[in-house]
């Protein structure tokens, strides 16, 4: 053992502190405000089909968010969270992955599951917690999940997905490890991306997850969405260092910061990160900078903690418009068709709301199923007692009373 402390062996005789902001971290930007590729920047390798799928997903999510925010205000759904301002960060990163790479998100990443193919009907079933919801109506709106789409079901506690992503990615790597050498023997077929906000990065799970990913060399892409606010708490009351990216280096993780309102920059960075994760079997940290244009959730009112002027300044920098201008320059998008598509999406959403809100709630059985693989005896007993009680007072429990077997 020549280096038991695991440090760089760099001896100095001058007493000097390293500055607390010694890393002057650049932010990768590729697209200009007018959809032009900036001088010195290189557009990533993205084909027309992927670019249009990316754009149409962002367009859909913006309209879904507008409509469902309104639906919440009308009292039709209990709660909603918008992706406003972060559509490019989420969608372009998801677009740079393979369809069967695992996505472990925080909650504001509906664009990623939409990109994978989650249908409008599936969105509505979850939002209305009806019996067709894959999550069986158990979680608040926007807690999406789908095994088929490799999108881990959202859990409200913040940051818990971070060390889980490390473990999941480690599992993905296992079969590629050469038994004799213990080293990576082949390119990893699937990796994991893990989204979280700059606020969640204050949780202990962030530290645990990144440190373990680095030590155990898990092929996970940590995607920090630094959107400026954790509900009402601004980033300067959340941490003192240079964003989240500065921490990556501390963990020994390759790190990049990107303009999160720039779909091409996000796509390029995630594509490169995926290559590192899959080929070298190690984690990567991406910090995306995109302003949270909307409220934290429908239970929040940002006018209490930030100015209209600040919001207006960022509103001008719409990630969807910026990417759209690039698509128009490429000649891949027709403005008229785009407007027609938006009208159609609005109509579809309205129609889907009307259908989903009429679908009945899950049956009583779903109250006790899935706590375990099969109900344990004490729970089974409680269930039988509850059924008897409801049968005796059917008017008090109209949602389930008529369907008890």
């Amino acid at each position, binding site marked *: 053992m020549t280096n038991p402390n695991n440090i760089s062996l760099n001896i100095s005789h001058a007493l000097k502190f390293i500055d607390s902001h010694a890393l002057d971290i650049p932010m990768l930007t590729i697209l200009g405000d007018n959809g032009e590729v900036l001088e010195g920047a290189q557009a990533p390798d993205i084909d027309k089909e992927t670019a249009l799928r990316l754009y149409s997903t962002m367009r859909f999510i913006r309209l879904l968010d507008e409509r469902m925010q309104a639906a919440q205000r009308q009292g039709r759904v209990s709660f909603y969270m918008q992706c406003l301002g972060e559509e490019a960060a989420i969608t372009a990163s998801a677009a740079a992955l393979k369809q069967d790479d695992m996505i472990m998100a925080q909650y504001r990443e509906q664009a990623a599951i939409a990109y994978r193919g989650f249908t409008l009907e599936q969105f509505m079933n979850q939002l209305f917690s009806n019996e067709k919801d894959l999550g069986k109506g158990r979680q608040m709106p926007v807690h999406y999940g*789908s095994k088929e789409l490799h999108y881990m*079901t959202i859990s409200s506690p913040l940051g818990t997905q*971070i060390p889980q992503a490390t473990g999941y990615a480690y599992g993905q790597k296992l079969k590629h490890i050469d038994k004799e050498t213990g080293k990576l023997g082949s390119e990893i077929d699937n990796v994991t991306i893990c989204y979280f906000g700059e606020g969640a990065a204050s949780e202990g*799970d962030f530290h645990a997850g990144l440190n373990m990913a680095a030590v155990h060399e898990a092929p996970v892409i940590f995607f920090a969405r630094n959107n400026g606010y954790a509900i009402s708490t601004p980033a300067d009351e959340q941490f003192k260092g240079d964003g989240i990216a500065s921490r990556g280096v501390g963990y020994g993780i390759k790190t990049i910061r990107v303009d999160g309102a720039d779909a091409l920059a996000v796509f390029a960075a995630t594509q490169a990160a995926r290559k590192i994760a899959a080929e070298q079997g190690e984690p990567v940290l991406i910090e995306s900078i995109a302003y949270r244009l909307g409220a934290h959730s429908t239970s929040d009112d940002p006018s209490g903690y930030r100015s209209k002027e600040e919001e207006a300044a960022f509103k001008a920098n719409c990630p969807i418009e910026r990417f759209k201008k690039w698509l128009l320059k490429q000649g891949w998008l027709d403005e008229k068709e785009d407007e027609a598509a938006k009208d159609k999406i609005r109509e579809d959403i309205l129609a889907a709301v009307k259908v989903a809100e009429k679908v009945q709630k899950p049956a009583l059985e779903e109250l006790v199923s899935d706590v375990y*693989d099969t109900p344990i005896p004490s729970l089974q007993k409680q269930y039988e007692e509850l059924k008897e009680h409801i049968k005796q007072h059917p008017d008090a429990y109209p949602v389930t009373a008529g369907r008890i077997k």
Partner: protein
Amino acid sequence: MAKMNMLHAINSALDITMNEHPQACIFGEDVGYFGGVFRATSGLQEKYGKHRVFNTPLTEQGILGFANGLAAFGAPALAEIQFADYIFPAFDQIVNESAKFRYRSGNEFNVGNLTIRTPYGGGIAGGLYHSQSPEAYFAHTPGLKLVVPRNPYQAKGLLRACIKDDNPVIFFEPKRLYRASVGEVPEEDYTLEIGKAEVVKTGSDVTLLAWGAQMEIIEQAAAKAEEAGISCEVIDLRSILPWDVETVAKSVVKTGRLIVSHEAPITNGFGAEIAATIQQECFLHLESPIARVCGLDTPYPLALEKEYVPDALKVFAAIKKSVEF
């Protein structure tokens, strides 16, 4: 059959699992080359490789977060928390994540592959932070299973059952017995059913109920009681969640008396749940109040450990009080 202590039995169960599933992983603090501070994972890294048996950084929440992810992926995740006293940084990952993984996703995802092993309990001069019995905290969490073995044979069969069970399980290992308890254990694979208590001695006057290391204590108390002409039925609960109400109730219907004993503090200990359920199930059969002989409502002490623990003498005193009620 071979003579094994509890560590050997646990090691054997882990060995069988690692051999059975090419993706099973054992991880925790110092479990790698060193084989764990108690040596439960001794020799397994050499046998299965550093990528499957490895030390983790010192982060319990990280160990359980990682374990949840690995289990959700589909690999048997065998996580060790070095002492149950240090499981609390992982409380959120266990209570909010492991326990709710299946339910919250509508069974889209689950962590049935997760088994958490952790040494618990006193008797090793461990003071506040190497002695606790935190089972009751977890017993309040639907979605978890909790299992505690009393000897090497039980340890191997129950641990294998926990690993095979398609739900997250915490396996509490009575560390005082790791080397002290020795017995015949089959070298081949076998399982013991989770959720079933075992009547280890039949009797007619009073039912004594415990689990894990406390079994030895109530068996000693039962022997003393026999000398005094009191016939005790002794039951090992084995599983705390789910727990075998039927076996306990059947015994109490017969004896009319129940004494529950655990090392954890009495208030809100699992004995409280047992007492509440058994008075419900056996109300008209009870000859005396259900008694609990447990730790005091203090942190686990060091110099005064002997005074604190529910020893055989305290259990015997409770037996006499119960039959003389």
